[in-house]
């Protein structure tokens, strides 16, 4: 289990390793063809700032060699906003008095139709954590409803036990995204005071359970803004490196979501809660390029949390998949577009517009890069 490795590391020591990296460390990291975790620490350090353009060039070259001039597109399908957890940064948090909604079969169908009409073949199913109403049977039913219409099904839901994952994979589940949010235990407890999610250990061992269940792809990430982004990213890289060695048949993707403002329903109506800037654009580019230089074959995904201008520019710098036209509320595409979103979208352009942006950047938008016929399914 990853926790055995994690316990050998100490947050403060890692922070110091990153903060004390020198220009020499950065240059050494840049000159290598295969990079270590220590190299990664140098590449995300303040000392690497003057080398950003060199990093960007290397990142672009490595990405094109491995992934070609292509960009995958996917969209989230929010199935439910019911949630028993309290997460301080999320609009679905139990203590936010919004109306709760879980899509019924015909509503899932209509939302799916809308996504298909936009051209999507890769869908990401998203829920909160409400095991009574949105447990494994509900998710399994949703996969069955969607698997003949989408080439690739991924999900971002509550962490599950290994047999449940094995069960869902046999139904057609390809990818699971499970972000640790933060690897800092104190910060994790502070931001997740209540619900099953309060267990740091259960969450951090989720990718192990997924690997043991034989999942095709795991998405990892830290929610940037909860703790120091550099240290959190080091631990994300450590986690990735461990998983790649341990579950070598599984593919991995990384996300780097920055905290976004959310709407909170209080006594005086809807209020926006803003978390301020946790990381500059320049720092996020540095992180994207550092991930690429560390792992030339990992998929890097960028959501509509980021601004159009930023997304348009980083397409060329190492990203391999984008979402577009996303709605982060259940029923958000057609069933009930006005309901409250999980977080505010920054890039509201349609999938067709994003596809045009990708083409103008000299890349091919890829809508389909998987086929269920490649999996052994029980039907």
């Amino acid at each position, binding site marked *: 289990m990853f926790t055995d490795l994690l316990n050998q590391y100490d947050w403060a020591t890692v922070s110091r390793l990153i903060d004390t990296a020198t220009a020499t460390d950065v240059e050494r990291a840049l000159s290598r063809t295969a990079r270590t975790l220590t190299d990664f620490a140098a590449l995300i350090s303040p000392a690497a700032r003057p080398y950003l353009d060199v990093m960007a060039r290397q990142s672009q070259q490595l990405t*094109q060699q491995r992934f*070609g*001039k*292509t960009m995958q597109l996917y969209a989230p399908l929010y199935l439910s906003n019911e949630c028993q957890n309290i997460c301080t940064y999320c609009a679905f948090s139990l203590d936010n008095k919004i109306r709760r909604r879980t899509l019924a079969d015909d509503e899932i169908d209509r939302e799916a139709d809308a996504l298909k009409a936009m051209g999507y073949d890769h869908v990401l199913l998203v829920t909160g954590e409400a095991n009574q109403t949105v447990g494994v049977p509900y998710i399994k039913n949703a996969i069955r409803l969607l698997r003949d219409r989408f080439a690739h099904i991924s999900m971002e839901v509550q962490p599950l036990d290994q047999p449940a994952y094995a069960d869902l994979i046999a139904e057609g589940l390809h990818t699971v995204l499970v972000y640790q949010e933060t690897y800092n235990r104190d910060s994790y407890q502070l931001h997740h005071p209540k619900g099953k999610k309060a267990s740091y250990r259960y969450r951090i061992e989720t990718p192990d359970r997924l690997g043991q269940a034989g999942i095709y792809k795991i998405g990892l990430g830290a929610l940037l803004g909860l703790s120091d982004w550099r240290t959190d990213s080091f631990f994300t890289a450590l986690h990735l490196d461990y998983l790649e060695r341990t579950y*070598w048949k599984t*593919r991995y993707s990384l996300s780097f979501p920055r905290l976004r403002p959310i709407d909170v329903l209080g006594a005086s109506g809807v209020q926006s809660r803003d978390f301020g800037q946790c990381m500059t654009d320049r720092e996020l580019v540095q992180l994207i390029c550092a991930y690429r230089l560390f792992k030339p074959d990992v998929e890097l995904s960028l959501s509509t949390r980021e601004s159009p201008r930023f997304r348009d520019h980083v397409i060329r710098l190492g990203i391999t998949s984008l979402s577009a036209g996303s709605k982060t509320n259940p029923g958000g595409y057609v069933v009930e577009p006005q309901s409250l979103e999980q977080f505010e979208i920054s890039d509201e352009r349609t999938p067709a517009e994003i596809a045009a942006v990708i083409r103008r950047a000299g890349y091919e938008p890829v809508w*389909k890069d998987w086929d269920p016929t490649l999996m052994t399914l029980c039907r």
Partner: protein
Amino acid sequence: MTTQSLRIADRTFSSRLFTGTGKFSSTGQMESALLASGSELVTVALKRIHAGDKADDTLRHLTAPHMHLLPNTSGVRTAREAVFAAQLAREALETNWLKLEIHPDPRYLLPDPIETLKAADELVRLGFVVLPYIHADPVLCKRLEEVGVAAVMPLGSPIGSNKGLRTLDFLEIIISQSQVPVVVDAGIGAPSHAAAAMELGADAVLVNTAIAVADNPVQMATAFKLAVEAGRLAYEARLGSTSSVAVASSPLTAFLDE
């Protein structure tokens, strides 16, 4: 001047450059580059296409009469999955030709020899023309030949790496003892690598990344076409032997003639 044509199973090829269809910046550019390459056999990943759909954007650009499709099973992890996917590919693309790819490792995409041999055995029995992607392992090539594959496709270096013929010594052994065509697949990053493989006696090469990711894919495709032809011409013309041992002016064995 033309080179000898290449025969694999029931088909004859005048071009010895096989190509891939991934990684291009647009399907239009892919088509132009593949036409410039003169390639008559192009691989298509099942996962990238809507196999039953004639309007599929990739397939629409691969309709030139001289271009034969070679569906590949990229994405499968076991022999069982490969056989299942192959049957669907045969039905949807109306070809019994198959590039058998089983790489359970998604990072380096290195082929699994055990699963590949198992799948090849079964697919041949099912009537497929099987071209397996494999490591440059001479024994495995012979085992595959024994189960009836139509050609073998050993790698030059890790796929997409553009590193050239890092497995040179093993490719030489494979070529010297193979009774089926040998297609060097993966890792060919420059026309000079392709020419070197052809001079070595490979029957064909398969190139994708080096063409798709070039600044000018059409020009690069043309360069590969010429390199493959040059390499083959040189092979057929019989290269002079090379020697790293200088011929001494006073041979050590001169006393025998005294």
